[in-house]
């Protein structure tokens, strides 16, 4: 059977503000994206990402703002007129209906002929690899199966925009990775436009064409997964993306290509930045634990003498905490087997060190 592709949108554009009483949940949250992309709203709980998704779906009203699709303003439309598909964290299958009736629900509302409904439901069940389950009830399925049915139920209508609200959060780790791949496969093969909400940076990076990092109702950074991963704009995004080591320093000099040399707390450190810092500015140097090199030339730039404090076995690598002779603590992930008390040289490769503004929060300052 040939997999169908869906008509999708060419562009989505919105700017929304949402307040619950005195609390501002979304402040001028704005985005403009092209169709056929996989977009992720990434942020910790309470950052407003799910609220934003629900507003786009039409399930909750925005306090102010607009949502435009292909040049048509849609924020006044009720959810049933928007032709979006939505998948929820807790699956939200209709517990009193069989798998078949769940998937057929939307098609029945469109008064499609019985034969067409039966065929398309079969097609969807095949697509989510649950052929033969049409007579079961949701309560008889595992969490992963329920979520696949929920996805099939949304996809059978060929939604012009697919919204996924933390769809994998209730699944166990192994299933999550499987389902992640499946969601990406369906997105690509059906030619969908998807918005995916998650607090898991691995999900965001692996699935997305475009990642939107949010915090407390504000858009902090939007970009490709590579940009977000390699060039976080501030400490908040860096922390979210796995930077663990932060050293407050002052800029000494800025070279071409925004190469920065900085000093502070008895250490001299070189790295890169995306910000236009001037000499003398307070900055924070940041590096990921697995970018730190253990051993090497003690005379090379960014090399420090250090003493091993704690070693945690992680399998292929160890997680090590060392105290540098400058007094700072450093998290290191390394395949080099170290023992507590050992003296080592650690090198922070200059192309792996980034400099960030000292306050990580608020995004737009």
């Amino acid at each position: 059977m040939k997999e169908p592709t869906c008509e999708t949108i060419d562009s989505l554009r919105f700017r929304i503000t949402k307040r619950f009483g005195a609390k501002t949940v979304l402040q001028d949250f704005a985005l403009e994206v092209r169709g056929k992309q996989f977009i992720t709203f990434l942020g910790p709980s309470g950052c407003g990402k799910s609220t934003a998704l629900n507003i786009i779906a039409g399930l909750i009203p925005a306090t102010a703002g607009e949502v435009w699709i292909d040049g048509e303003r849609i924020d006044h439309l009720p959810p049933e007129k928007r032709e979006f598909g939505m998948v929820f964290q807790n699956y939200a299958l209709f517990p009193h209906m069989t798998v078949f009736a769940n998937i057929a629900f939307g098609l029945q509302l469109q008064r499609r002929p019985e034969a067409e409904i039966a065929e398309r439901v079969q097609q969807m069940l095949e697509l989510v690899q649950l052929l033969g389950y049409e007579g079961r009830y949701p309560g008889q399925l595992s969490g992963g199966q329920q979520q696949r049915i929920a996805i099939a139920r949304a996809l059978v209508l060929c939604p012009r925009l697919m919204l996924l609200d933390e769809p994998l959060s209730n699944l166990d780790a192994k299933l999550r990775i499987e389902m992640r791949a499946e969601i990406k496969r369906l997105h690509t093969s059906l030619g969908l436009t998807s918005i995916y909400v998650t607090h898991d940076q691995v999900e965001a990076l692996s699935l997305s064409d475009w990642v939107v990092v949010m915090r407390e109702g504000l858009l902090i950074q939007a970009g490709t997964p590579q940009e977000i991963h390699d060039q976080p704009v501030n400490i908040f995004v860096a922390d979210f993306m796995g930077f663990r080591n932060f050293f407050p320093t002052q800029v000494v000099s800025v070279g071409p290509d925004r190469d920065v040399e900085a000093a502070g707390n008895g250490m001299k450190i070189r790295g890169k930045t995306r910000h236009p810092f001037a000499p003398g500015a307070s900055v924070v140097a940041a590096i990921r634990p697995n970018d730190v090199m253990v051993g090497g030339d003690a005379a090379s730039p960014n090399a420090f003498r250090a003493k091993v404090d704690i070693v945690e076995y992680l399998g292929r690598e160890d997680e090590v905490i060392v105290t540098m002779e400058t007094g700072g603590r450093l998290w290191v992930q390394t395949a080099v087997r170290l023992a507590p008390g050992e003296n080592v040289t650690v090198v922070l490769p200059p192309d792996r060190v980034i400099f960030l503004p000292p306050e990580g929060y608020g995004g737009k300052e």
Partner: protein
Amino acid sequence: MRRSRTGEPSELDLLAIACLAPSLLYILVMFVYPFLYGIYLSVHPLKVDGFSLANYIAFFTDQYQYKTVGITFRLAVPNTIVVVAISLLFAYNMRRGIWLERTITTILVLPISLGVILLSQGILGFYGGKGWFNQLILGLGLLEEPLILTHNFTGVMLSLFMQQFPFCFLMLLGYISGIDPSIENSARTLGANPWTVFRRIMLPLIAPGLAIAFALVFVMSFATFPSAIMLGQPSGSTRTIAIAAYAQAFEMFDMPYASAIAVIMGLFQLAGLLLILLMRKRMVTAATMGVGKR
């Protein structure tokens, strides 16, 4: 510690039984014994020695008595439908919380705390021939004659509604607001308008709660006694079966006959309950297109 249900009784079971004993004893003494005694009494009429169905025969052959069954049904059935329907309307629309919810809920629930007698007195005063309600209507010139709302069928209906609505509303509100909102949200995104969501998704999910509400309100209405006396015509149009039983017991001092009437009343209540549960089952089956788990 978990054991299978088929396991041998353990010390824990004995302890559990020991702990339950006082309440079991209470139920036996205060409910089971009087109940069985009532049945025994009903088949041992005053004027007959030994077992006899004379009381039951007397009830169903005396028009003055068997008419009470019809009267009680005529009160209980419409009242149950009205109470449950209005409770459902309120509870469904308040399921996601509303503005001033606590205040409104308090006002709706207040009648529970007042008791039937005070409530009935209030209704008599307010809706009576010289009550504020009629004075307002006459004062505004809306009607020439006062509306007769008390000491008749309407009065009893009013009183029953005010007693039972809070119970029923609270029960349904708890039931409906317990349903995961994302279920109806997903139905909306699949193209269902609010009415379709109610009919195809929410109503089948609410059905079990609705059946319980119907059952409880019906049983309460069927047993109505103080309202029927205070706000109705206890010797005429609202002579319910409970009044008939009371009259036999405390006016005629014929306890066996009164017991027989009480048993008859219980049987009709039971029949009503069975009918409601049967309808619930059919309703869910129709909505799900097949019976299965849940």
